[in-house]
């Protein structure tokens, strides 16, 4: 095989590399925009778990509910992963991904605490329902735009570093 390559050919090869990589970012964006089912399922699990806290369960009941909640979240992640056609390489993620996860945690946790404080005077069952609904609602409203922001930033980052 002839290994000599002139500059024009090398330039064309560098441009050719960009095309399949664009397909990967297209797929990442498609997954982010079509992952609404997973978002709703996560929110539903969160709602059930938080609402169950209003049942004034004994400590082992709370522990069991937490274990079941975490297990179901894990199952959801595995199911989503099985449906995926590819996974972006770890080197392609940016600080936006970490920031969005941290912000999601702060926002969801903050809503749990704030709504818990606001409904403190209500009956525990009713208070837990309001708390669960507020938290799950904030999660659903937050997840879509942040997913789009994160995946958009991935492509922008790749273009800046020239892949």
């Amino acid at each position, binding site marked *: 095989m002839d290994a000599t390559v002139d500059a024009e050919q090398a330039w064309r090869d560098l441009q*050719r*590399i960009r095309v399949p990589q664009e397909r990967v970012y297209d*797929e990442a964006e498609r997954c982010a925009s079509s992952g609404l089912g997973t978002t709703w399922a996560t929110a539903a699990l969160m709602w059930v778990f938080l609402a169950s806290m209003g049942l004034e369960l004994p400590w082992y009941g709370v522990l069991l509910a937490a274990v079941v909640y975490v297990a179901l979240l894990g199952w959801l992640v595995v199911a989503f992963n099985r449906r995926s056609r*590819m996974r972006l390489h770890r080197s392609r993620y940016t600080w936006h991904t970490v920031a969005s996860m941290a912000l999601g945690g702060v926002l969801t946790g903050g809503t749990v605490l704030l709504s818990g404080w606001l409904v403190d005077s209500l009956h525990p069952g009713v208070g837990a329902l309001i708390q669960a609904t507020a938290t799950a609602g904030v999660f659903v409203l937050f997840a879509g735009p942040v997913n789009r922001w994160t995946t958009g930033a991935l492509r922008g980052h790749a273009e800046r570093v020239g892949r």
Partner: protein
Amino acid sequence: MSTPAGFDELIHPATRLSVVALLATTEWADFAFVRDSLSLSDSALSKQLGTLQEAGYLDLRKEGGGRKRRTRVALTERGRAAFEGHVAALRAIVEGAGAVGPSAGGPGAPEEAPAAPEAAR
């Protein structure tokens, strides 16, 4: 003309370069995703993957069974290093020619969105 260190003849052919470039962006990708993204036939992609696997550049893993059986393709560390070396070599060739001056559509020309090659349509 001599080629810079890192230039890899195995991944130099256009289709194989596209396959490796796609896989370099991923941890893993489904066979079907690679095939569809590059508009290749099953047999053409299998042939390219076989060549790369023999060189130790990628791993093929079959998962599931029956109708849900799928093949996941991932670059190995060796394959990733070879791709990065190859890209660095291509850049070195382009930069080496930069002193000569840009030509229309050539290495010194302003960067534009490239036309999708036939293999990637």
